[in-house]
């Protein structure tokens, strides 16, 4: 009976596989080249951002009102990580593709798939290597945060971590696109074309379709760049994070489907379609998760704490009928200043866009009106400011507006500082350290003495 059994897998340890993947990605030039290119890119953006922030701070030091508008998140962090985002969009696909493309081109993939690992384990290990690579290439951006603190700048821990989390998710998303492109392509160059078509394409999609409505707005939502927006605004969206994680898992699953070379194309296509169907369902579920936390220190995405407490107590449905087209600047203002805040603060809010387009075609007095219906009472306003809309809502609900308080007022963090010295770090110090690390990583390890001893035998 034992003879009939093939060699039975004893459950290989994941450690050698992970070590191999990390060694492989560290051995490639793509990672280190990207790291070296990110240094000046991030350094220049950081220095420019600090310089502009300092200029704005000069005036703000004299006025507490002006100081309140100075947030390091907007002034320094987002621009600095913005350049990192560009680098990840354009260069990170090459790093991710190498994780799989190199093995595919050299034929080592046919060895790898014969090892006693599940295909899911193989792809997970590669995704871990991509994550490790992202952590490495984010060193220049993270070092900018350290320098900012050393210069005396303020960092709010939660909003900073939230921003880093957003970029990490985006990096993983780009990495997963790279892995999938590598597995479906015959060569790394084809994979690079596919991956860049997705990343740059979605970038273009994002700014060409910005502010459009209808189908175009829906298409714009598919852009990978959309992943970052809420994080840059200090929002932690459970639905978006879940959706992004779903897409990453979906791409990883597609990579698993396409990994085994012995499966026919037809079977792979059928499995891919099933996977896409499952991802679509999961995305639909994620879209229903509306939990969003405002983690910005200045609470820019929320009303005052007193207002939020009062609004949370208004349990009846609130219907807001907006007679504007979505691309109207007034609607954009209303959405940013009022609607999105209300949707988070109140338990039951419905926003309806009514007849906006017809009203533009044949203008009438109704265009621009916003009708608020709470329970069986309603009122109309044209304002997009919460200062006017909140009292209107309180009146509809029959509650007293909260007393104005200053307990949660954001002080602002003006800082006048000369950041020219940072060029030395980003253009010389850090690249030198990276070059040294590259040299150190490429050293070949010594061989265990017993092997040489055994090897010396005739």
């Amino acid at each position, binding site marked *: 009976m034992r003879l009939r059994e093939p*060699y*039975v897998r004893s459950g290989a340890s994941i450690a050698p596989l992970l070590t191999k993947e990390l*060694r492989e990605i560290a051995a490639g030039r793509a990672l280190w080249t990207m790291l070296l290119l990110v240094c000046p890119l991030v350094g220049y953006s950081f220095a420019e951002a600090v310089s502009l922030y300092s200029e704005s701070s000069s005036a703000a030091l004299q006025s507490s009102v002006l100081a309140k508008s100075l947030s390091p998140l907007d002034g320094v962090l987002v621009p600095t990580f913005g350049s990192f985002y560009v680098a990840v969009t354009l260069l990170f696909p090459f790093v991710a593709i190498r994780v799989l493309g190199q093995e595919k081109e050299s034929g080592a993939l046919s060895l790898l798939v*014969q090892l006693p690992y599940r295909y899911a384990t193989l792809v997970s290990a590669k995704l871990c290597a991509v994550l490790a690579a992202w952590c490495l290439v984010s060193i220049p951006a993270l070092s900018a945060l350290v320098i900012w603190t050393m210069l005396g700048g303020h960092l709010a821990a939660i909003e900073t971590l939230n921003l880093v989390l957003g970029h990490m998710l985006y990096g993983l998303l780009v990495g997963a696109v790279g892995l999938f492109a590598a597995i479906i392509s015959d060569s790394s160059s084809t994979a690079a074309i596919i991956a860049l078509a997705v990343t740059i394409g979605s970038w273009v999609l994002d700014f060409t379709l910005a502010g459009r409505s209808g189908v175009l707005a829906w298409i714009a939502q598919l852009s990978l760049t959309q992943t970052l927006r809420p994080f840059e605004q200090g929002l932690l969206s459970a639905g978006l994070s879940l959706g992004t994680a779903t897409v990453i898992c979906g791409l990883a699953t597609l990579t698993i489907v396409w990994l085994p*070379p*012995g499966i026919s194309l037809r079977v792979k296509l059928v499995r891919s379609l099933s996977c896409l169907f499952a991802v679509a369902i999961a995305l639909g579920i994620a879209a229903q998760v509306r939990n969003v936390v405002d983690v910005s220190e200045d609470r820019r995405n929320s009303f005052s704490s007193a207002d939020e407490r009062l609004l949370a107590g208004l349990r009846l449905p609130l219907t807001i009928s907006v007679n504007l087209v979505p691309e109207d600047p007034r609607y954009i203002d209303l959405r940013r200043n009022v609607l999105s805040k209300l949707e988070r603060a109140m338990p039951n809010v419905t926003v309806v866009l009514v007849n906006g387009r017809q009203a533009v075609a044949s203008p009438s007095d109704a265009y621009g009106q916003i009708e608020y219906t709470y329970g069986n009472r309603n009122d109309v306003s044209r304002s997009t400011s919460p200062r006017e809309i909140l009292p209107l809502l309180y009146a509809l609900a029959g509650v007293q507006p909260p007393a104005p308080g200053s307990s949660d007022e954001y002080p602002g963090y003006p800082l006048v500082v000369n950041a020219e010295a940072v060029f030395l770090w980003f253009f010389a110090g850090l690249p030198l350290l990276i070059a040294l690390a590259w040299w150190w990583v*490429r050293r070949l390890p010594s*061989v265990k003495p017993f*092997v040489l001893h055994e090897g010396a035998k005739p």
Partner: protein
Amino acid sequence: MIERGDSTSLLTVQNLTKRFGSEATAIDRVAFSAVAGEILGVIGPNGAGKTTLLEAIAGLLPVDAGEILWCGEPLGLTRRRDAMFYLPDAMRPYRDQSAWQVLSFVASVFRRSDREIGETVAVLGLEPVLRKRVQALSKGYARRLMLALGLLAPHRLLLMDEPFDGFDLRQTRDIVGVLRNETARGRTLILSIHQLADAERVCDRFILLSAGRVRGIGGLAELRAETGLRGGSLEELFLALT
């Protein structure tokens, strides 16, 4: 020509067919069996379908028809890699790593002991190049490294594509000795070889493959009887049958 799978065979290949596109048939209804402990040579010129056949058996290439049996029972695609290990031709895996790193990776995956790694290094004479990067290895050492990976794999059946390519006569004889030791330990080897002299030296039985079809199966004596060429070399037998 077609052998039927029976319970004494370790591996039985039945009517394996692989087409590339609608017309090009790489292997056509190939059928044979491999007995435990033998060295079976798949012989044929370049383009005969040897590599395609080995990859199809190993489950690394989708096939259009055919079945693989293990000890007389169907061996599905997912269990194929539990039964056999395939060493491709002319491959240098993980070029930026040292030979030692590649060896120790595969050895750790298969939970090989330090002693076993040492023995493999010794028997294949890899010791001088262990610290060299794979991309810097000569063709012969790259081939030895691949063989070492195969020897470290615990599978009962090894499929090797052109295992003697890149070796001179003396080295080939050494490697033949290594492979003979492996079969003495109970391993079965299926080798694809285009050099008939090498094949004649190492294989117990032969599958003569030409244009994707099996033209003859058996040991030298059986093939001689089939062709009527007494004392004929493998080369003469191959020419007579194809």
